[in-house]
């Protein structure tokens, strides 16, 4: 490692908000924050991204909800959660009390859901940004996922934009299960998203060869973990190439500082850590430390310089 006598600037910007470092939890993989706080202070990472919260309490799906796969896993939680009201009453104040920066992830079943969620959140203090999970089935459109169709993706994001006011930056979280992710990204940015979160899980299935039925109760589930990292890198690279000024929260299979660095080089302004936390409760902290060391070793003076660095001209 090189000796450095300057102070490395590890902070990053999520639209107009600055956070001290770029490592976040991935939505749905950090519980309410309390569980993880047994292992490290939540204020040590850039921000906690909450699990996607919906309007009403949700039981989620029946078990089995998960299956391990080669270098990954499937999950089918079905957005279990207490609903926005209890969430605002309990979870947010507790996270604020911990000094954590908070990115609230929201999910809806209808465009109106997104609008109402945004209104409920607009005046809440202590929130850094919204992540809008549009990888959910749209009950008004044959259950097709909002993020899989440019029109419904746009509608969900516009609803949030209109109702949140000019205050909170909003990040649209996209599904990789589309023919052309750049066109969806362009559409939601045009609809008012300040940034993007890439990628959500990939639709997959495991069949239990003992029972000879699909393993998960809902048959399909979302594939996450290192197995999908090449897809995440590709999606981030493509979208950053098309929309170089739009900040991206990158995620998908990041389990080490090296992996985080790969997504940053592709164009991510921040990195969410999901599945890796299941294998290692302090994954986010070690990833943060390893990433900082790599960046310093490579001679970057600021984290910002590394964002999208793989897009430079080859000489």
């Amino acid at each position, binding site marked *: 490692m090189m000796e450095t006598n300057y102070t490395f600037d590890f902070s990053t910007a999520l639209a107009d908000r600055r956070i001290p470092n770029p490592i976040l939890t991935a939505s*749905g*993989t*950090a*519980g*309410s924050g*309390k*569980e*993880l706080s*047994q*292992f490290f202070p939540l204020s040590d990472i850039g921000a906690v991204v909450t*699990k996607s919260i919906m309007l*009403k*309490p*949700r*039981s*989620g*799906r*029946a*078990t*089995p*909800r*998960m*299956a*391990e796969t*080669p*270098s*990954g*896993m499937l*999950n089918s*939680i079905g957005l*279990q*959660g*207490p*609903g926005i009201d209890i969430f605002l009453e*309990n979870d947010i104040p*507790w996270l604020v009390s911990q000094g954590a920066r908070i990115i609230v992830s929201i999910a809806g079943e209808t465009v109106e859901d997104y609008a109402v969620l945004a209104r409920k959140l607009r005046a809440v203090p202590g929130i850094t940004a919204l992540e809008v999970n549009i990888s959910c089935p749209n009950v008004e459109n044959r259950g097709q996922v909002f993020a899989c169709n440019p029109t419904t993706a746009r509608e969900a994001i516009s609803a949030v934009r209109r109702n949140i006011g000019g205050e909170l930056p909003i990040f649209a979280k996209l599904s990789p299960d589309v023919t052309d992710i750049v066109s969806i990204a362009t559409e939601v940015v045009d609809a008012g998203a300040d940034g993007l979160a890439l990628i959500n899980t990939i639709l997959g299935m495991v069949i239990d060869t003992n029972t000879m039925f699909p393993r998960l*109760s809902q048959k399909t589930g979302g594939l996450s*973990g*290192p197995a999908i990292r090449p897809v995440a890198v590709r999606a981030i690279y493509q979208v950053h190439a098309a929309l170089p000024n739009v900040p991206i929260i990158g995620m998908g299979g990041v*389990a080490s500082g090296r992996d985080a660095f790969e997504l940053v080089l592709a164009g991510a302004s921040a990195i969410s850590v999901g*599945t*890796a*936390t*299941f*294998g*290692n*409760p*302090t994954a986010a902290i070690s990833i943060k430390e390893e990433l900082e060391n790599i960046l310093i070793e490579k001679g970057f003076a600021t984290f910002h310089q590394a964002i999208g660095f793989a897009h430079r001209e080859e000489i």
Partner: protein
Amino acid sequence: MEMPTINSRAQQMDAEVISNKRLGAYNHIVLAVNEIATYAKPGNFVAISVGGAGSSMVLRRAFAIYRAQIRPDGQGVMELVVAPHGNGSKWLASREPGESVNIVAPLGTAFGIPTEPVRALLIGGGYGSAPLFALAENLKTKGCRVDMVLGASTAAKIYAPLEGKRSVNSMTLTTDDGSAGTQGRVSDVLPSVIEQNQIEIIYSCGPMAMLSAITDIANRFGVMHQCSVEESMACGIGVCMTCVLPVEGRDGITRMVRTCIEGPVMDGSKVTWSKSREIPDGVWGK
């Protein structure tokens, strides 16, 4: 939801394998640990990384803590009983002394110990007997009478070490194939054992179908039933929501509850032992 202080003693560490011995269908593994040995209570579990560097297995495996203590020489030890089943448990069962494994422990809820001496029945299915021996010792210390019923498909799958047998007042075995004890299931012998010994509380650990059957019998006899459940767990620390069961709360509402952090030990009578693959009607948020 309450603030989970439950895993506040949990630590992540590399633990050296002190010994690993084959016992019937299982491996008895002793790990060198630090002071967490004093925090671990019967019912708690340990989550272990499997496969080593470059492994394709990204999730930890959960194992009940069979026993944990500080040895006279000051060394903390944690003992497990591992059934080599799939790739992860096979990997663990093939660790040689001197190798290390990464653990997070102690995790989850523990069996509740009554303040008064009571007549307790401990029921284990297969390796489910593992946490019951340390529990039996604790109960004995409290002056309880402890009876035990262990069942498995076949004799080799009954885990009942000699010193364990010493700490119980009676031990009944059942096997599906009749190779040890009574031929049949644990639930077949249960009513008579409960009646004979005037059981006041049941502690159980084993396959879900067994726990469900025990709950029915316990309810019938009006006996308390603490069971340690075993749902597939991705994280073991309460952050992923994969390990849930429908459980009735103090407010009478049934919720999908995480068995890793509000379990594995739960009040059997509060669990809706419904068919898997569906959310029972009436669950909060259905």
